[in-house]
């Protein structure tokens, strides 16, 4: 029997909640937003048809509370829950509880989440269906004591050095660390296990070879209730910091049609082993020698799904909702999958997060005092915030995803540079300086990608120092524009003829002066820089 969806609760916040709510509206579905006390006035709440409160601001008291989300769904009369990414999206017990409550979980079946959520189980299953896995162990490492952890050394020598210690239940870059020396292994195993136990309630850890110079390439998968599973193409997500993605693109540059087809087939093979329904992503390492190694499967909508949408023309969230209704894969999806190995066009996404790229990408908080989004041809902006939003420290620092699409990679890069120059954000430091640098970087333009790209190439010190000196000039120029004795572009008539007064303009904090700053910027920038710029 086919469930007819009418009202979908979106169990998430920020840009992804808004993105899903928009898809619901496009499909004629009613949407229910949920919110914590910190998000009462957030964009996603205003965008939805209905809204239900979950609890206080901390995620553990709101968005991570399966019972509260289910209660909200019942109160709102929702017949489906879309979990987005993060939070409850990959929790098998939550998916099972939804089904038990007669509410459709928009995602893979609970058993699939459980099976693929255990990364060791996923590794074993992938090996069993002939998919090459990153060399490493297949059982949890003993971590009860330093002595038992040390017993893993022989295994580690077989895996090869350096290696990664990973949490079986890990994700989002957590529970993962690189170990370079034999003597550090036991300590790393125990620390990673403790971290995983605290974060995921499961302390199982395993070893995996660290593949030098590898790229992160992943395959977007869709499966329907009839068991048809297709790959919608791949993405390159090698630009990472702390094992978390900063920039993603589709297709992965530099692969020929055969290489693409092969990696798509590997992704489909893993998905078939778990009877995947709905959307998931199979992640691989692409070694410099061309070898492809399976990493893991994420059983949810990915943050970076948009680049695949821009290249294929498929709306993945629409498809998720259709699949949840029991419909088979649409003809659009099948056609896109058929030509996935020979994609046309190129899309790039950059994650604009509230982080300080000069300080190890540490998250920052604050109030967004300025927010002007780029636009124009080939630009898509998925944002969860707006001018006036408070960036709280309770949640992921992602503010917006800027996506560009063009006929080829160089054109997409040019478009990215153009769009980044249009993006104005004030009030909080963001990752924009990094993205501006990256978009100009010759190694990135040459697609010389690896997961250590950022660690090896990003040197923020000189860039920020140069910007600081320029900021001093900009600020003093701006201040003098009000005391120069001539009328500023928009200046009040009364300010003329006050040349010799060494006073600084008054009232910078009030709204009218804020406006004056805008006008100065628009009208006066080029002129202001001219006296020394030539």
């Amino acid at each position, binding site marked *: 029997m086919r469930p007819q969806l009418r009202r979908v609760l979106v169990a998430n916040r920020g840009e992804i909640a808004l993105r899903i709510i928009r898809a619901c509206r496009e499909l004629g579905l009613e949407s229910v937003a949920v919110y914590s006390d910190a998000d009462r006035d957030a964009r996603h709440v205003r965008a939805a048809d209905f809204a239900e409160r979950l609890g206080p601001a901390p995620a553990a008291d709101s968005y991570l509370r399966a019972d509260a989300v289910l209660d909200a769904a019942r109160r709102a009369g929702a017949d489906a829950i879309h979990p987005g990414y993060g939070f409850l999206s990959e929790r098998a017990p939550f998916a099972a509880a939804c089904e038990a409550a007669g509410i459709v979980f928009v995602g893979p079946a609970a058993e699939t989440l459980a099976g693929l959520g255990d990364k060791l189980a996923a590794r074993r299953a992938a090996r069993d269906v002939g998919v090459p896995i990153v060399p490493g162990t297949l059982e949890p490492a003993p971590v009860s004591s330093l002595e038992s952890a040390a017993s893993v050394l022989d295994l580690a020598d077989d895996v090869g050095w350096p290696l990664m210690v990973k949490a079986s239940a890990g994700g989002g870059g957590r529970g993962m660390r690189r170990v370079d020396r034999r003597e550090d292994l036991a300590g790393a195993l125990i620390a990673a296990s403790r971290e995983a136990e605290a974060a995921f309630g499961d302390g199982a850890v395993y070893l995996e070879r660290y593949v030098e110079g590898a790229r992160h390439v992943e395959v977007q998968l869709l499966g329907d209730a009839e068991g048809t599973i297709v790959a919608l193409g791949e993405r390159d997500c090698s630009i990472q910091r*702390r094992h978390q993605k900063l920039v993603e693109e589709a297709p992965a540059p530099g692969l020929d049609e055969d290489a693409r087809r092969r990696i798509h087939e590997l992704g489909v093979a893993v998905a078939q082993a778990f009877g995947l329904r709905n959307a998931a992503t199979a992640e691989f390492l692409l070694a410099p020698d061309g070898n492809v190694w399976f990493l893991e499967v994420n059983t949810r909508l990915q943050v970076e799904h948009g680049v695949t949408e821009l290249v294929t023309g498929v709306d993945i969230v629409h498809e998720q909702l259709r699949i949840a209704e029991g419909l088979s894969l649409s003809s659009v999806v099948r056609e896109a999958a058929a030509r996935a190995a020979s994609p046309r066009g190129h899309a790039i996404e950059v994650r604009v997060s509230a982080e300080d790229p000069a*300080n*190890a990408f*540490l998250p*920052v*908080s604050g109030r967004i*005092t*300025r927010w002007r989004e780029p636009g124009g041809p080939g630009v898509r902006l998925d944002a969860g915030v707006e001018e006036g939003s408070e960036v709280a*420290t*309770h949640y*992921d620092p992602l503010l917006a995803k800027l996506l560009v699409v063009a006929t080829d990679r160089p054109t997409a890069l040019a478009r990215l540079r153009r769009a980044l*120059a249009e993006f*104005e*954000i*004030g*009030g909080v*430091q*963001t*990752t924009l*300086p*990094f993205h501006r640098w990256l978009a100009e970087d010759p190694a990135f333009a040459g697609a010389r990608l690896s997961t250590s790209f950022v660690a090896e190439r990003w040197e923020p010190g000189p*860039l*920020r120092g140069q*910007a*600081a*000196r*320029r*900021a*001093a*000039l900009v*600020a*003093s*120029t*701006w*201040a*003098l*524009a009000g*005391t*120069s*004795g*001539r*009328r500023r*572009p928009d200046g009040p008539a009364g300010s003329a003829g006050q*040349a*010799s007064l*060494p*006073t*600084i303009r008054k009232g910078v*904090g009030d709204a009218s002066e804020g406006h004056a*700053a805008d006008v100065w*910027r628009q*009208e*006066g*920038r*080029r*002129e202001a820089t*001219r*006296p*020394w*710029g030539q």
Partner: protein
Amino acid sequence: MERHEARTAMEPMKPVEPPGAQGDGAGAGTPGRFPESPARAPLPSPEAIRATVETEPPVSTDLEPYPPDSTGAVGDGAVGGGEEAARPVGERPGADDGDPLVLPLPAVAGQPPGVERVEVVVDGWRFEVRLEPARRAVLRERARRSAGPSASGPRVVRAPLPGRIVRVFVAPGDEVETGTRLCSLEAMKMENEILAPAPGTIERVGVEAGARVEQGDDLVVIG
């Protein structure tokens, strides 16, 4: 016509010697920035404005308007001329590689009268900049210097954001280098390592593992 007017409004100014563009870690307004020779550094012209970017170390620039009847020609040496005056020129990246934004900032507690603060965003980098008449800044620094040297003094490392202390790597008496791990702070789902901003000896550790901290709380004091 409007644009022409805008340009003339912008032209009557040029940079004069920037007092601390190099930055030596001592901080704006700290002694030692100006020559110790008996001859006092001359006061900037009354109209000059000093912009101090509140980075570590701070960066500052003095800008002085051209006289209203000046042609605005560059390098004519009329005001603060010579190579010093032209210094910031060479350090400017092209004018088209980013949009400087100037945004108002609310006054902070203890902000002296005549000082205002703005936020400037250059190439996506966000800075808080203090603006004041350069003359006043110089006088204040002189007054502070004559009140006695304070040296660089101990450095307090504060929590950059609220969160929970996961581990503390240092104890009082430890020698640290720039970049030594001090402690790790869990916030926004991530563990962030707090690194020593400068070399020194740990004087005090104000937190322990498991402690919750708010943004700006003292973590470690480096002597």
